[in-house]
C-alpha cells in the first residue's frame, strides 16, 4: 500500500490539538528557560558560596542526566513528597529547568565578556552592583546570546516530544495515537514532521524579529 493522505483530514483535529500542546509547552518552557537561565547565571556568578555550591550540584544534575529521567523525577518522584503536578506543568518545568541550565552557561560567559567599563560606568553613577547588573550588564549579555539561545530553543522544541512519556498528548504522541487507529505511520509521522518544521519556521521568525530590534543597540 502506497502513501494515502486521504485519511488525514479525519484526524487532523487530534494532530492540531497535539500541535497546540507542543507549541504551548515549548513557549512556556522557553520563557522559563530564558528567565531561569538569567537567574541561574547570576547565582552561579555572584551568589555567596553557601548558595552557589548546592546550586552547582542541582545544575550538574540537570546537565549530566537524561531529560527523560528528570521528567520522571518531577512527575512521578515529586508526588511522593506531596507535590502532585499536572503532567503538562511537570513537563514545562522539566524542560524549562533543563534548558535554563544550558542557557545559564551561555549567559554566564556573556556576562563575563561584557566590557568591564560598563559595570564601572554604572557604579560610578551610583548604582549598586545588583542594579548595574540588572540595568546594564545583563541586558547586554542577553543580547549577545540570542543566536545560541535560539539554537537551544530549537533543541527544546525537539525535546518537547519527550513529555509524551508522562502522558502529555503533544504532537508526537498525538501522531502515534492516530497511527494506532489508522495503521498509517508514514503519513502521520510525515505530517507531524511537517508541523515541527512549521513551528521551527515560526521560531526562526521570532528570533529574526528580536535580532532586528536589537541590532541598533549594540
Amino acid at each position, binding site marked *: 500500500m502506497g502513501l494515502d493522505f486521504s485519511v488525514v483530514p479525519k484526524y487532523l483535529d487530534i494532530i492540531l490539538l497535539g500541535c497546540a500542546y507542543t507549541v504551548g509547552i515549548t513557549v512556556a518552557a522557553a520563557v522559563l528557560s530564558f528567565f531561569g537561565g538569567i537567574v541561574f547565571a547570576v547565582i552561579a556568578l555572584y551568589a555567596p558560596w553557601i548558595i552557589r555550591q548546592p546550586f552547582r550540584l542541582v545544575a550538574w544534575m540537570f546537565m549530566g542526566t537524561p531529560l527523560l529521567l528528570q521528567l520522571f523525577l518531577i512527575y512521578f518522584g515529586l508526588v511522593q513528597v506531596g507535590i502532585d503536578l499536572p503532567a503538562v506543568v511537570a513537563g514545562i518545568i522539566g524542560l524549562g529547568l533543563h534548558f535554563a541550565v544550558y542557557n545559564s552557561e551561555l549567559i554566564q560567559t556573556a556576562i563575563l565578556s561584557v566590557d568591564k567599563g560598563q559595570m*564601572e*560606568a554604572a557604579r*560610578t553613577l*551610583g*548604582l549598586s552592583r545588583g*542594579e548595574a547588573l540588572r540595568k*546594564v550588564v545583563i541586558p547586554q549579555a542577553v*543580547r549577545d546570546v540570542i543566536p545560541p539561545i535560539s539554537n537551544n530553543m530549537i533543541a527544546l522544541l525537539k525535546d518537547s516530544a519527550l513529555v509524551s512519556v508522562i502522558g502529555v498528548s503533544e504532537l508526537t504522541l498525538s501522531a502515534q495515537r492516530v497511527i494506532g487507529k489508522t495503521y498509517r505511520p508514514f503519513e502521520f509521522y510525515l505530517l507531524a514532521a511537517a508541523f515541527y518544521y512549521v513551528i521551527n519556521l515560526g521560531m526562526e521568525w521570532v528570533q529574526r524579529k528580536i535580532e532586528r530590534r536589537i541590532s541598533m*543597540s549594540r
Partner: protein
Amino acid sequence: MTDEKSFVEIRHAQKAFGSLEVLKDISLSVAQGQIVGIIGSSGSGKSTLLRAINDLDPLTGGEVWLDGVQVNQKLPHRQYEKHINQMRQQVGMVFQHFNLFPHMTARENVKMAPMMLKGLSQEEANALAEEQLDHVGLLERIDYYPSQLSGGQKQRVAIARALAMKPKLMLFDEATSALDPELVEEVNQVMRKLAEQHMTMIIVTHEMDFAASVCDRVLFMDQGVVVEEGPPAILFTNPTQPRTREFLRKHLEGAK
C-alpha cells in the same frame, strides 16, 4: 559649611596592585570650583589616583575626603555599599572610552541613573535628559544609540550622563585621548563650558595646551608620586624638576 580649601582632599594615598606600588603617598587638596590637571607618562598612576577618588580602585592606604565626608571610611560591608553609592552619585566620571551603555539611546543613558536613584518621574527625567543633552549640544541626537554617534558625540553624551546626577565634582580620565584629532575640540568646548560654570574638576590629560588654558593648577605625576605641581603658566614654562622638564620636552617632540 565645609572648608573652602579642601573640597576634595587626598591624604597620603597609597595603592598597590599586589607587590606593584602604583601610588606612593600622594596628598592633594582641591578647593571648590578649582580645576586641577594631572599630566604624566603612561603608567605613572594618574588613572589609579582618579579612580581612587570614587573608590573604583580602593586605596590600600590613606584617605579621600569629599566636601567634609570621608569617601573611603571603614564601615561594615553593607553600610559601606550604601555609603559609597551615595558618594559616587556626587562624583561624575568620564572615561577615555566613553563607556556609554550601547543598548540605550542617548536619552536613556542620561536619564537612567537619575530615575533609579533620585526617583524622578518619566517626565522629569525626560526634561532632565533634554536639558543635559542640550547643554552638550546634542539635543537633536537625543534618540540615537551610541553606535550611531561619532566619538566626540559619544563623549559629550557621557559627560551629559555624568552631569545629570548633578555631581559636586567631575573627574575626567583622558576624555579626548581616544578621539580623532578633529573631534577633540567639541569635547574640550564642553569642558570649558563647565569650567566657566565653576564646576570642580580633576582632569587627567595629555593635551598640554588644553590643560594650560583651563586648569588652575597642574600636577605632574611620575612613578606614583607627584613630582611637581603649580599654576600651568609656571609648570609648563618653567618647571623646576628635571623629570618634569624631561617629560615636557619629550611630549613636545612627540607632538610635532
